[in-house]
């Protein structure tokens, strides 16, 4: 079974530029999550999708961050404009409903904002 795929793996941009990350979840997983992991901290949920609908985006800075999940499969997360404090690893995870819902994480995209 293929895992969660993310691209790019690394990205360096200057502040005020825009950037986009892509995620392909495990086949058949209806739920998709985007997390932000700042160095030395645990992952923090940014947004959760159930199929192509948003379930929780309470911690997404909506003035600069946006995300979509078209057709309930792939997802993109965009930052526009980026700030220095956005430097972090952006993790995508997916899960399928069940009595023990396990979230499977991708390798992450490491973003550095200069």
């Amino acid at each position, binding site marked *: 079974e293929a895992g*969660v795929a993310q691209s790019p793996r690394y990205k360096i941009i200057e502040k005020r530029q825009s950037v986009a990350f892509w995620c392909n979840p495990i086949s058949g997983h209806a*739920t998709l999550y985007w997390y932000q992991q700042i160095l*030395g*901290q*645990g*992952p*923090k*949920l940014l947004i*959760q999708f*159930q199929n192509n609908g948003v*379930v*929780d985006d309470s911690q997404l800075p909506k003035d600069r961050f946006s995300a979509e999940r078209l057709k309930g499969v792939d997802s993109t997360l965009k930052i526009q404009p980026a700030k220095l404090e956005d430097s972090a690893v952006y*993790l995508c*995870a997916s*899960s399928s*409903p*069940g*009595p*023990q*819902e*396990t*979230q*499977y*994480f*991708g*390798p*992450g995209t*490491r973003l550095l904002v200069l």
Partner: protein
Amino acid sequence: QKEVEQDPGPLSVPEGAIVSLNCTYSNSAFQYFMWYRQYSRKGPELLMYTYSSGNKEDGRFTAQVDKSSKYISLFIRDSQPSDSATYLCAMSALDGGATNKLIFGTGTLLAVQP
């Protein structure tokens, strides 16, 4: 006060030692408790999953949950150099359904010296 507190370490032990990793939490609604392992430049992977209070054992790993004290632990017996990683505790109040929001600790960096 953070919802989940975790000793950041770093923790360095000799090969074969017993390792104890701990988290405390403040939200009494948490019912599901997880330990994730994260190798450098990789996404977190689920190690142990426990519902409510009690112990769970899987090979060299034992997870303990004490809901009365709001305290969870992960024990690693006969630690190996391959166990060197960051260990993240995570908790959620719901399993499946509309939301499955995980709250992570900051992670403990473990180094097992050969």
